[in-house]
């Protein structure tokens, strides 16, 4: 059994990165392996925004990640500096910036790049989806 760290850097709206990464991770579990974390960086952090409301017949990648993460119990990390710059705010920063609300909630976690630096130490395989 091997463990994967998955970096997603492509936009949920202008790339196929999330589509591929979700299906890849399903297959990781089907093959009996595990995922250490999915780490969202660059434009990919957008997917942590819980206000995402696509049309009814379109895929909601925010929900898709949530579901897969809860099903297999792997963490969803979004990089704090990029997320904040792009308007995706967790609880801590919400207090820091004195905002009245937050749009990034569990199972998404807003974390530093250190979480990724650690994850790649602790895993057997690393893959990136641009």
């Amino acid at each position: 059994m091997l463990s994967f760290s998955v970096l997603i850097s492509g936009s949920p709206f202008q790339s196929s990165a999330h589509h591929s990464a979700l299906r890849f991770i399903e297959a990781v579990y089907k093959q009996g392996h595990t995922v250490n974390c999915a780490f969202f960086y660059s434009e990919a952090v957008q997917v942590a925004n819980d206000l995402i409301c696509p049309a009814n017949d379109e895929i909601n990648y925010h929900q898709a990640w949530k579901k897969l993460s809860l099903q297999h119990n792997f963490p969803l990390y979004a990089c704090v500096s990029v997320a904040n710059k792009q308007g995706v705010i967790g609880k801590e920063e919400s207090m820091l910036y004195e905002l009245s609300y937050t749009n990034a909630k569990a199972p998404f976690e807003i974390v530093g790049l250190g979480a990724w630096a650690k994850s790649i130490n602790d895993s057997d395989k690393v893959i990136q989806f641009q």
Partner: protein
Amino acid sequence: MKVLVVISSSPFKGDKAKESVDLSLSLAAFDHEVSLLFKGEGLLCLLEDHQPKSSGLKDYFRILKALDLYEIESVYAFECQQYPINQLKLSQRISPLWCTADKLQELLASHEMVFHL
């Protein structure tokens, strides 16, 4: 206004192709004379055998079937060596006018506005 909307993005890399179609339909609904031009990777919108359902994606190309209903004036396609798609099975939904660089030059000159997402 005489508007040309250019689609040069792949139909499946994000939303640009879909957004271009939506823009065209809205402009047409507000009485603009809209033409569509497919070029580059956008030409792949014209292939017959897309299977968006195979990946759980929305088949927004169904809409292309009904472009005339939506009063889109004309649909053009710009030939391209990189995507020689007219050697493949093309969608029955649209029959674009294929154009060369000269024809495209005319087309660009004869429209009052050009949008290219």
